[in-house]
């Protein structure tokens, strides 16, 4: 068959008769908006890496990564980052001890036990916790929790890792609860019904069916909470102190990586000095640490979405 003669009306051509340039311009502008976030990431990487490389040219990386004394302003200066890392771990540990069990408990209650009406009332109140500015939590840790701990008989300093960590943990409860609850809600009803049909109690369904089925989402929420705890600045800058202190003793003051950056960054440190560049070295360490955890968390969330949705 070569050419067939079309009889009657010509078929309608289903593409635009002429190219609409306006449409293309709009698409281009929108793509430009999207490029802002790409530029942000590139900007962050450049802003951190370049001065950090200069820093490591002056201070060998092994001295930085394994040194146990952090004293950039002393003479002679010492740039061992471990005290800051240990301080960060100390606070993060206490935050996790609070947000992981209580966040999971809240999630199980909201997802499995609460009636829809109760749930729609409780959830926004819980999420208010995430809406309180961190500077307010810092104030609360310093002026309320630390004196409370002292009244309870603990010999805590004015600045200590414990109060900062506990308050941070409460702040992170909604983070853990809402992500975990999402994962639990995605568990199909049939799994629960099957277990009930076999005579399970609500407790058994919650702990042996729903939690294991939602485990990747729960772990994702935990990883995200750890990442947030490591990156949190104001609570520790106010309540945990600014003394590089290589200790896991929660009663003592510590300096975290974020608190150090905030303390040095707010002063008038001359551009180009090694001290100025420490901000970027520590910032890069922080960025890489949290980046790894965020990617793990995003992957895990995708995993349960793939299975159940």
């Amino acid at each position, binding site marked *: 068959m070569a050419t067939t003669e079309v009889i009657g009306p010509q078929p309608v051509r289903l593409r635009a008769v002429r190219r609409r340039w306006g*449409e293309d311009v*709009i*698409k281009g*502008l*929108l*793509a430009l908006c*999207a490029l*802002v*976030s790409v530029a*942000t*990431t590139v*900007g*962050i990487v450049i*802003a*951190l890496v370049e*001065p950090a490389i200069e820093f490591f040219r002056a201070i060998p990386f092994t001295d930085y990564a394994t040194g146990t004394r952090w004293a950039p302003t002393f003479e002679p200066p010492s740039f061992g980052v471990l005290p800051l890392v240990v301080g960060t771990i100390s606070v993060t540990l206490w935050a996790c001890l609070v947000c992981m*069990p*209580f966040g999971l*408990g*809240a999630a199980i*209650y909201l997802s499995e*036990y609460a009636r829809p009406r109760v749930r729609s009332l*409780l959830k926004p*109140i819980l999420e*208010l*916790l995430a*809406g309180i*500015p*961190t500077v*307010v939590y*810092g*104030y*609360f840790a310093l*002026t309320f929790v630390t004196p409370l701990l002292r009244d309870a008989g603990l010999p805590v300093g004015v600045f200590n890792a414990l109060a900062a960590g506990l308050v941070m943990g*409460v702040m992170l409860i*909604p983070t853990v609860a809402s992500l975990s609850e999402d994962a639990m809600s995605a568990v199909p009803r049939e799994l629960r019904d099957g277990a009930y049909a076999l*005579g399970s*109690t609500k*407790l058994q369904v*919650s*702990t042996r069916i729903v939690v294991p089925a939602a485990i990747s989402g729960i772990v994702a929420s935990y990883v*995200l909470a750890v990442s*947030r705890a490591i*990156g*949190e*600045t*104001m609570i520790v*800058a*106010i309540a945990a102190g600014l003394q590089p202190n290589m200790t896991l003793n929660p009663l003592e003051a510590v300096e975290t990586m974020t608190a150090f*950056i905030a303390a040095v*960054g*707010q002063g008038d440190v001359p*551009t180009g000095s090694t001290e100025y560049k420490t901000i970027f070295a520590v*910032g890069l360490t*922080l*960025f890489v640490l*949290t*980046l790894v955890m*965020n990617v793990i968390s*995003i992957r895990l969330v995708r995993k349960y979405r793939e299975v159940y949705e």
Partner: protein
Amino acid sequence: MSAPAVATGLGEGPTRGRWRGHLFRGLLLLSLAVGFITLGTLLVDVVQRGFAYLDGVLLTSPPSSNPEIAGARPAILATIYLGVLLIAFTVPIGVGTAIYLEEYADKTRWYNRALELNIQNLAAVPSIVYGILGLAFLVRGLGLGRVLLAGALILTLLVLPTIIIAAREAIRAVPDSIRQGAYALGATQWQVISRQVLPAAVPGIATGSILSLSRALGETAPLLLIGALQYIAFDPTILGAFTALPVQIFIWTKLPNDEFKTLAAAAIIVLLGILLTLNALAIFLRNRYQKKW
């Protein structure tokens, strides 16, 4: 007459199991209570402490070394200016990105997937890292200096991912049948988006934007790095030095004098008042205008 030896366990499990169930339920309620009790204690404590200093002086006077006459007027004004600039910057860029990702982007292309992952990741980058970005590029690189505009720009970048994610969800919730209907009537892609999809998504976008705004206005750490930590006695301008309300709270909290801590509590009441109003507005918009398709 002896009862038939048939025992059905339906409806009444073993007592021990029920006991455990009650205990477990109690533990779950305790988990929720930890959050609620802390929230309540925090609010009551701050209000009790700061109420005495919550007066006209706080709202209308500049800071001072004398706590009796110290106020937060420049900081409150700066926070309001920041809010206005933030809305002006973040909403167009954020909604634009969301439209691109939801309506135009081909999800099978690697660069669109990378873009998506990038935004998800940016949402979880610590806020102080944004401060470093601002310090390196805006304040020193561009030579903008420690001005309010630099603060607004850095907070814009900080909350953009949150706004984009919220706007995408709102746009995705608009059913495809609406788009198909408009196309069938001969609308171009942009006409479909601007006259059908966006109007339907406005409540969701507005809710997300207001929540992000409230988060940004409570941020302190990035502003510290771009130099908002200073004594400002005059009303701020966009291209002038500034200190925002959370930073003012930080300054007063760090001072050894207890009266300044009281003043900080009063400033916290003002800040929480602003943020809770924004939150309430967002929840109201969501409940009032959100459509169920």
